[in-house]
């Protein structure tokens, strides 16, 4: 067989063309940045030249030495690493505890209001990760570290102690609560699909309920639990906003905040080294997860058709349990919003009396707001509208690009599965997930600040935001693309092939309509993530294309508390409304199929 013929028959298959194009593009957009980053860990940057007394661009191992083997390493790297590990482990425990319990209550007991509670439970996950952090801060901040006390003190007169208001405890708790819905989705999915016969068989033998849970249910969900654990762990490790709000007041540094400090300050080389270590951590966590998923295949019986297992009768506890869960979920979902609304309408921070309430930060003119540098009220504020418009534009653009590329990637990866090329593209498309956002954007900044081949200099443009967002969220989109394609037997498409229906028509008339809701979630996830993204854009935006989240940070840095809380409220509302809207239109939703 000639090479020519092989190429021809290779490229006759549409999925091979897609794979080939993706390899080229994604290598450039993910592998080149990775290489650049590796090189950056061993070269001298402008900011470091004077201190190191070496010319810019010299190869040096001093960054690595400083991060790993210096007396200062403890504060530069080891202490933040330890803090990251502590808060992430804590977050995992909380996410699994709450999420797992809730999953069990929903799938295995006769708790009331299941479907309502199930939808409510997803809230913290839809909201930006820092929502709960900021709410916590609003409520429990104390005057010990300076500034005005929060709502809790105003109501009770008690100052929350430092360990409770700031640092590892609230960071772990808040991050854990944010990811608890994720644990619920993963574990609930397994519990729901698990062959109930396994449990029923034990029930026939008069095994007590508690033994069934410890000896049968838990071992079966263990792989899902481990998998959730690892994913929550790695997400918590790379969270930036939460430790910024809750850690910095007491100088509690974790890896990401340390990354921001070094990268933005005088030691970018050290920052890149820390980023490399984070990537390595991420890769190994992912490898472990892959192994566990591989195990799970021949471990649990996921039959897909769940027979109706007899639900645990909570008896007298039924109403109290339902109410406690409802109150808890309402407070986790709604209290933050209330606190934002409240903070945005009080004149003098810390004073929650009715006389101190004003709407001037929403509808006041510039003249009313002289204390905030004559910034007009939010609803009259052109900067806000520009940022809002930018945010929506950016999120739409990223979601369109990431969603479409993700769909194509999912299609091509599944059709070409088993081949090296397909595995390679799969890994390429997932890799951005492992890159800490901050480091990722720093690399893009340096890569695209000058013209490269056909790509013009992009610094300060909207395009670089779209590019970074698209690549960063591609993993979500390609995951849902892959899932959607796996659920669709290839014969469905082949039936069309045999009838001579062309590729385009097969996609638009068969594949996409059938898996509509899965594909839409491939667009939904990037949109929501982009809407609330901060660390990825914080280095890339310029005042001209500022988005809501960076405006939030800008106001926060300025100390204009009412404005930042108001914007926060807006962001959360937009995200929730958007999810609700898409859910109504398409039936796609994150918690689909678990709720009662």
């Amino acid at each position, binding site marked *: 067989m000639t090479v020519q*013929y092989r190429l021809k*028959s290779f490229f006759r298959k549409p999925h091979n063309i897609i794979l080939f194009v993706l390899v080229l593009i994604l290598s450039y957009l993910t592998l080149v940045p990775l290489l650049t980053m590796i090189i950056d860990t061993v070269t001298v940057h402008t900011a470091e030249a004077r201190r190191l007394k070496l010319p810019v661009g010299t190869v040096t191992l001093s960054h690595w030495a400083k991060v790993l083997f210096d007396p200062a390493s403890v504060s530069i790297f080891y202490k933040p690493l330890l803090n990251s590990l502590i808060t992430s482990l804590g977050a995992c425990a909380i996410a699994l505890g709450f999420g797992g319990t809730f999953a069990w209550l929903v799938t295995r007991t006769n708790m009331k209001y299941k479907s309502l509670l199930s939808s409510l439970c997803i809230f913290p996950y839809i909201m930006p990760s820092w929502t709960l952090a900021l709410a916590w801060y609003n409520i429990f901040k104390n005057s010990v570290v300076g500034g005005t006390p929060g709502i809790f003190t105003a109501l009770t007169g008690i100052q929350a102690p430092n360990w409770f208001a700031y640092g590892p405890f609230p960071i772990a708790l808040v991050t854990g609560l944010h990811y608890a819905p994720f644990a619920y989705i993963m574990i609930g999915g397994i519990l729901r699909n698990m062959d109930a016969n396994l449990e029923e068989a034990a029930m026939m033998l008069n095994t007590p309920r508690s033994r069934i849970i410890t000896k049968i249910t838990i071992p079966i969900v263990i792989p899902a639990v481990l998998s959730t654990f690892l994913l929550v762990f790695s997400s918590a490790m790379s969270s930036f906003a939460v430790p910024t709000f809750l850690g910095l007041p007491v100088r509690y540094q974790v890896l990401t905040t340390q990354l921001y400090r070094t990268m933005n300050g005088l030691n970018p080389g050290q920052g890149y080294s820390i980023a490399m270590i984070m990537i390595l951590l991420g890769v190994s966590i992912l490898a472990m997860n892959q192994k566990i998923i591989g195990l799970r295949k021949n471990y649990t019986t996921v039959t897909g058709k769940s027979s109706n297992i007899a639900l645990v009768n909570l008896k007298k506890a039924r109403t109290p349990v339902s109410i406690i869960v409802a109150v808890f979920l309402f407070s986790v979902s709604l209290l933050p919003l209330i606190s934002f609304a409240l903070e945005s309408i009080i004149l003098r921070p810390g004073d929650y009396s009715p006389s101190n309430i004003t709407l001037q930060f929403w509808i006041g003119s510039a003249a009313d707001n002289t204390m905030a540098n004559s910034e007009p009220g939010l609803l009259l504020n052109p900067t806000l509208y520009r940022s809002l418009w930018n945010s929506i534009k950016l999120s739409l653009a990223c979601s369109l690009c990431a969603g479409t590329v993700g769909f194509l990637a999912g299609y091509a990866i599944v059709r070409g599965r*088993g081949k090296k090329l397909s595995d390679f593209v799969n890994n390429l498309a997932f890799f951005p997930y492992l890159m800490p956002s901050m480091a990722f954007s720093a690399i893009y900044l340096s890569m695209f600040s000058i013209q490269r081949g056909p790509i013009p200099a992009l610094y300060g443009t909207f395009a670089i935001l779209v590019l970074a967002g698209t690549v960063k969220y591609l993993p979500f989109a390609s995951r849902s693309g892959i899932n959607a394609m796996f659920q669709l037997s290839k014969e469905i498409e*082949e*039936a069309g092939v*045999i*009838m*001579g*229906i062309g590729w385009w028509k097969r996609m638009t008339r*068969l594949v996409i309509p059938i898996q509509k809701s899965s594909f839409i979630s491939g667009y939904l996830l990037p949109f929501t993530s982009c809407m609330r993204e901060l660390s990825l854009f914080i280095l890339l935006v310029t005042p001209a294309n500022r988005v809501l989240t960076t405006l939030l940070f800008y106001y926060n840095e300025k100390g204009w508390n009412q404005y930042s809380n108001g914007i926060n409220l807006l962001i959360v509302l937009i995200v929730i409304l958007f999810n609700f809207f898409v859910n109504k239109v398409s039936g796609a939703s994150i918690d689909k199929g678990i709720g009662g």
Partner: protein
Amino acid sequence: MPEIVLKNVTKKFGSFVAVDHLNMTISDGDFITLLGPSGCGKTTTLRMIAGLETPTEGEILIDGTVVFSSDKQIDISPSKRNIGFLFQNYALWPHMTVWKNISFGLENLKWSKEQIKERVEELLDMLKIREFAARYPAELSGGQQQRVAIARTLATNPQILLMDEPLSNLDAKLRMEMRTELKRLHKETKATFVYVTHDQLEAMTLATKICLLDKGLLQQYQSPLTIYGKPANLFVADFVGSPTMNFIRCEAKSVDKHTLKLSNQVLCLHFSASSDLTGVTGGPVTLGIRPESVTLSEDGKLKTVVYSSLPSGMETILRLQIGDLLLNSVVFGSLDFPVGSELNISFSGQSVVLFDQEGTFVTTGSLALA
């Protein structure tokens, strides 16, 4: 004339050989079954004929046209091969009604509205599914879905119909009904049918010719009765027929041109071949005796003990013990025998099969006790 010719067709998945140098000619109007245990390469073979899978080597001709050739570097796309493909899981499009499922392919061929309407109605009648035209596949039973899938496949009038275990998801009664239906369709459409199944009974009852595969290798390609009566080797003999054929290992000694003396610990027999015994003069051989050739007879000289008895009304399946040998036997009629009772048997008929040391077919013949 849609004749299908496979020449040295091989398919490898990595280093695993799924189909190994397959040679086969399927004549126009045949009803061929591809038979073999699960994983033997049936689906792969069918998909290669359809063009859904690219062979690693070899050549495939349909209707005299080369549709695939690794040497001549030809690979014609499935839609140009004039075939229909019936998938094991039906692969109906769940978001389209029955009507739309059938008409979609025709619309794609740019048929006129009237022509499409006429053709769809014809098929709805032919498969007796007119009343379901407006339903979605999820609202149909398995058997009805199957009919829709057949209608969709037949819509474009393919001259070759490839079917991958189309009845495996149906219950036993529906399966019987659909078999009859398929035979009728074969007559009506005058198309060439290639039918994959792992069910030997289905293969026997439907096919004009059976292609028996094992581990990607062709074992035998002949009519059902030849396969049953003259199995090419022990694998074929064992795979076809239920209850399975009895195999008895013996030492052979040549008596004359047509006769062998066969013996083991339990038995001592004379085998009279129906043709010359050129190859075999002695040494270890295997006898294959179909259960229906093991007959009960009052004056039979072979004493056996009933090991198990499975009456089904029309016939009774017996397991009979002689020493450490167990024999299957089928007795017709409504009979039952107590376990442990003694029965006398003899070997009847001319269809006892002799296999050589390697397990290859030598000849058929009759048996008598020595």
